[in-house]
């Protein structure tokens, strides 16, 4: 089995446009930026949340607070397959009560990551509302979860994989759709 790049879903300019639109949607829906806070899911979501904070700041001249959640300890598959011993920290340096939280992830797939992130958030306080922003929605949900702000929707199958490369991780910004191709002998 090997992964083959099938298609570049978005390049750096497209990602920048998507994020600008999403920032505008966030501000519009929340009637400004004074009641919101952005929380990124480590690690891809956190980089995007950082960028959205800057964009919201440039639109509204108000910088909403930024937080990070690490969902490793909240996964429903912690011990299924190989354990993931690498645990990052959750940092929510603001009170959650009464705040509209915009949860940010890079790819929305089964919804299980978001479920875990919601559990983590609730352990810190009671936000007024939690909205979900994702750069890529690739469908195939396994839980009743939907995004409020979507960069791009991509139709995928179980054999596909979506990779989001970001410049914060030393890559050129791009979203790539890959397909798992099984060898003939398999």
């Amino acid at each position, binding site marked *: 089995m090997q992964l083959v790049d099938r298609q570049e879903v978005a390049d750096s300019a497209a990602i920048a446009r998507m994020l600008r639109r999403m920032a505008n949607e966030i501000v519009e829906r929340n009637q400004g930026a004074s009641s919101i806070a952005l929380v990124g899911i*480590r*690690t891809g979501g956190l980089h995007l949340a950082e960028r959205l904070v800057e964009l919201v700041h440039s639109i509204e001249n108000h910088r909403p607070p930024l937080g990070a959640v*690490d969902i490793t*300890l*909240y996964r429903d598959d*912690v*011990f*299924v*397959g*190989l*354990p*993931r*011993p*690498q*645990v*990052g*920290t*959750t*940092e929510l340096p603001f009170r959650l009560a009464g705040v509209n939280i915009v949860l940010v992830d890079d790819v929305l797939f089964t919804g299980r990551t978001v479920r875990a992130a919601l*559990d*983590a958030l609730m*352990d*810190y*306080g009671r936000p007024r509302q939690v909205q979900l922003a994702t750069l890529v929605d690739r469908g195939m949900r396994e839980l009743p979860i939907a995004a409020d702000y979507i960069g791009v929707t991509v139709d995928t199958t179980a054999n596909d994989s979506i990779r989001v490369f970001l410049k914060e*991780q030393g890559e050129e910004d791009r979203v790539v759709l890959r397909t798992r191709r099984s060898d003939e002998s398999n």
Partner: protein
Amino acid sequence: MSPTKAARVFPHRHLLGIADLDADDIGQILDLTDSLREINERAIKKVPTLRGRTVLNLFLENSTRTRVSFEIAGKRMSADTINISGSGSSASKGETMLDTARNLMAMNPDVIVIRHSASGAPALIAKHVDCAVINAGDGTHEHPTQALLDCATIRTHKGSIAGLEVAIVGDIDHSRVARSNILALAKMGANIRVCGPATLIPRSITEIGGALTRSCVRVCHKLEDALEGADVVMMLRIQNERLGKNASRFANTREYSRYFGLNARTLALAKDDAIIMHPGPINRGVEMMPDVADSGRSVILEQVANGVAVRMAVLYLLGRGNLTDLEAIHQ
């Protein structure tokens, strides 16, 4: 957390001693400890990670700090923790250790945490049960989680352990804490001065980790030599209960305190930013004067706080179910 650092599978089934670990294993536990510490400061001090796992705390020797620390660690990771103490258990009715272990296994725990007065008891039990075994102190052998929490505390204050000068002072002979710490600190690259009356230092202590400790462990019989230029001063308790009434190792506690007790005068020999550690409980006025124990350089209570985080990390790494679950997953 750097994104390039590959997730590493912890390569051990049990935690029986620091002797079994290498620097990468210790580093992995310390990194995880740093990540988990924050949970203990939240309003809701609990994560659901070990939900449904059972942790048996089998404490066949007296302990409050370590038992409570393991219990809290288990509960904060959402495991079900059950405590069994020595008095009132079937051990006091004459059941052998192995029978106790087999009976406990029949209840299907995922982790057994054991403290025992016999060196090697956890290793023996680990051979006969199919869950993870954590040594919470066995005789004069090892107390690995204490060494790990000490390393975590040192790393928080000093940034890194490599190259530090660490003085370990007191009853080395009876101290499993000293043995685990010598091994852990040596593996992490520290230089260690072991200090105490000659009667309380085992002759082969520098050989405990083979060539590694032979090169980085030095024995001092004068407190001043051990403290000179030290970055970390680790004082150990005089274990009166292990010293025996008729076979005294030193004349009296007053004399011990005069020559090996840490006070403001002797502490001045250590570096200005040296930290003072003690695994507790302290004999105030014997191995450590109260003004030193309560000074701003004492990190003794931080050690206790780190103990919970370290034990959460160890439970996370080892509490992934019993062997049959693991085999089922790997198939």
